[in-house]
């Protein structure tokens, strides 16, 4: 009787599904399979679906070390058997693969900035007490009143008066900017830097704030300057 071993690619790496049968035989068949495709699978992360097999720590531990000798990593074991699940957890292996891997926030903000994706348009005035949080850029078509706050991992653009609190690049992106037709926030934050707005003199003008060697600086918007 031959034991079925199936290998397919998933988002989290490779998913190896094994059929029923004597575990020793399954183990050998699996190793043969990995041997044959060794070049392609080099450095791969494996998730193993063992179906109904009830595995003890010794069996699973041996498989893991055999797999790592093939220069692959076993990181998850899926099973219908609670015994196997418990064994896997004891060995520090995952027993679920459904959840997407958490991405690194900093890297994420950068991606957002570069692709220009994931921006939201808020077409109303944000009154005191409103907190707008968004992983991406925020465009407000209206005012941001004192007591309201906008927190974005990307840029913040306010087509109106910005008088509340604005925090751009909230996940650490120091290239983030804040601009508004009237830039008079109670407080302005870019990445980890905080600034207060000085008392304004004269007529408000469209301004853009960004970080310049660790300082938040605001300058009048210049149509001639290309960005």
């Amino acid at each position: 009787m031959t034991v079925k071993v199936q290998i397919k690619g998933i988002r989290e790496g490779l998913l190896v599904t094994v059929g029923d049968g004597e575990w020793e035989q399954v183990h050998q068949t699996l190793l043969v399979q990995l041997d044959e495709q060794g070049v392609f699978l080099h450095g791969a992360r494996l998730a193993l679906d063992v179906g109904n097999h009830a595995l003890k720590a010794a069996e699973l531990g041996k498989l893991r070390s055999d797999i790592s000798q093939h220069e692959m990593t076993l990181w998850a074991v899926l099973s219908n058997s609670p015994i196997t699940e418990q064994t896997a957890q004891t060995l520090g292996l995952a027993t679920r693969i459904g959840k997407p891997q958490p991405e690194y926030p900093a890297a994420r903000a950068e991606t957002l900035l570069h692709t220009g994706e994931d921006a939201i348009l808020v077409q109303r005035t944000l009154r005191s007490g409103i907190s707008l949080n968004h992983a991406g850029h925020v465009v407000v078509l209206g005012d941001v009143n004192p007591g309201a706050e906008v927190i974005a991992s990307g840029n913040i653009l306010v087509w109106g008066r910005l008088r509340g609190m604005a925090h751009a690049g909230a996940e650490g992106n120091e290239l983030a900017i804040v601009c508004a037709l009237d830039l008079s926030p109670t407080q302005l934050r870019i990445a980890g830097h905080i600034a207060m707005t000085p008392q304004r003199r004269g007529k408000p003008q469209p301004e853009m704030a960004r970080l310049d060697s660790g300082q938040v600086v605001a300058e009048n918007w210049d149509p001639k300057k290309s960005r």
Partner: protein
Amino acid sequence: MPAKVITVTSGKGGVGKTTATANIGAAMAANGHKVVCIDADIGLRNLDVVLGLENRIVYDLVDVVEGRCRLRQAMIRDKRLPELYLIPAAQTRDKSAVSPSDMVRLCNDLREEHDYILIDSPAGIERGFRNALAPADIVVVITNPEISAVRDADRIIGLVESEEKGPARLVLNRIKPAMVKRGEMLSTEDVLELLAVELLGLVPDDEVVVVSTNRGLPIALDGKSKAGQAFRNIARRLNGEQVAFMSLDDNGSFLGRLKGLFSPGGN
């Protein structure tokens, strides 16, 4: 015509909600409307004092809600105005004694036989405010020309919008024209620029208001006071009439009076 429910609120305390409720109510009743004022500030009742009806309280709002008396028994008729009633708040309980749905039910029971139901909201944005807001058809936000009061008004206007009770209408209370003129107080324009809502009334600061609230005689019934006139104008605007805003400037009072002669009944 079933009554309109008007909730008077502010967020910040001490800006003149209770005074405004009492005076708008009195002015409406003096114009021949059937008015009920409800004090929703359970535990810190004041409206009865300002209307001078404190010593006539037998039953209150909580008694009605908990079924200890009939609605009519809790309604105190004003001593001068036969069409003005007050449902006082309980003083020995707190806000949790009444729920928003209780308030809606109570107002629905009152709607048929009256023209206006005025609710005096407590300060804050918690349960008491929710109670006062739940039955509202019109929300009147009172504020003062002070930054802190304007901030709170902004918050309240936002909450009113999110409850889909908006747009709220604004009354700017306690304006000191001389200070505004010297640039020491926020002007009407400053406040409206930030809040961006419809202006319902401008009430000048007037020492006579303090005297009248202490005596329990609404100033709206005083023909001479400017603040009283302002509250009468607010009552008429709420009734759908077009009333020009009066000049609060002392120097402009002659012109204002002249204008009053030509605009119907206004000042």
